[in-house]
């Protein structure tokens, strides 16, 4: 039995869904960030599987760019977490809920 690209994509979808679940259920900002990273990785897997199946290298090159974006996002996100932590002494996003309505 060969492993078709569809299997990879299903795995990717699973990882993406787990990432979403993490964002929605965890309140530690760091874990939420990691969940977002997980979503991006799921996308990467999709890109690579699709590129391989299509016989096209663009998919892999796209992943390279996603990596850069992920890195930049993490840097900024962690900077925000640190700023919040310094100010409020917590990284719990549920406590950042003064504005509503």
């Amino acid at each position: 039995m060969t492993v078709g690209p569809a299997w990879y994509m299903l795995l990717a979808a699973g990882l993406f869904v787990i990432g979403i679940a993490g964002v929605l259920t965890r309140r530690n900002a760091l874990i939420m960030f990691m969940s977002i990273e997980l979503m991006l990785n799921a996308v990467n897997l999709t890109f690579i599987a699709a590129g391989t199946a299509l016989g096209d290298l663009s998919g892999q090159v796209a992943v390279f760019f996603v990596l850069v974006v992920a890195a930049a996002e993490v840097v900024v996100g962690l900077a925000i977490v640190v700023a919040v932590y310094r100010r409020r002494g917590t990284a719990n996003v549920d406590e950042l809920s003064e504005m509503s309505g």
Partner: protein
Amino acid sequence: MSELVIFVVAGAGALAGALTLILAKHPVYSALGMLGTLFSLAVLYVSQLAHFVAAVQVVVYAGAIMTLFLFVIMLIGVDQVEDTSETIRGQRVGAIGVVAAFAILSGYLWLSGIFSWEVVGTGTEPVNGSIEATGQLLFAEWVLPFEVTSLLLIVASVGAVGLALFKPRKAEDE
């Protein structure tokens, strides 16, 4: 056959890592779960002949980004164990609902055969994501996006410096 074994093992590793990430009470365990997923994915990339990306995955992601995560976890206190009981009313139901719906949707698309895939792609030769081939593409066709990533890095560094080094002036607080 070997591909199947690799897929099953690495895939299971990735899923296990991902579940650890979102279920662990301790952020450090989450980070380790994430790390497991990243490595498993790198293995899968290799099996898809995406060698360069796999290498970058290990170096940049597992190496740099996760280190940064761990660093911040250390910075804001490793001993913090999160209380995972839900406090927002309706949040758990909503979250589980949409996540389950998303999962069901993916499963439906897959089971209904929609995932079956015939390759009528642009190139039929198997791609080989060597450094040379990737670099060829990166600096020729993709040169503009490549330059744009430099902007991204400027933004990231400016942002990190601007935010993390900023001392709140007490007088203007509130």
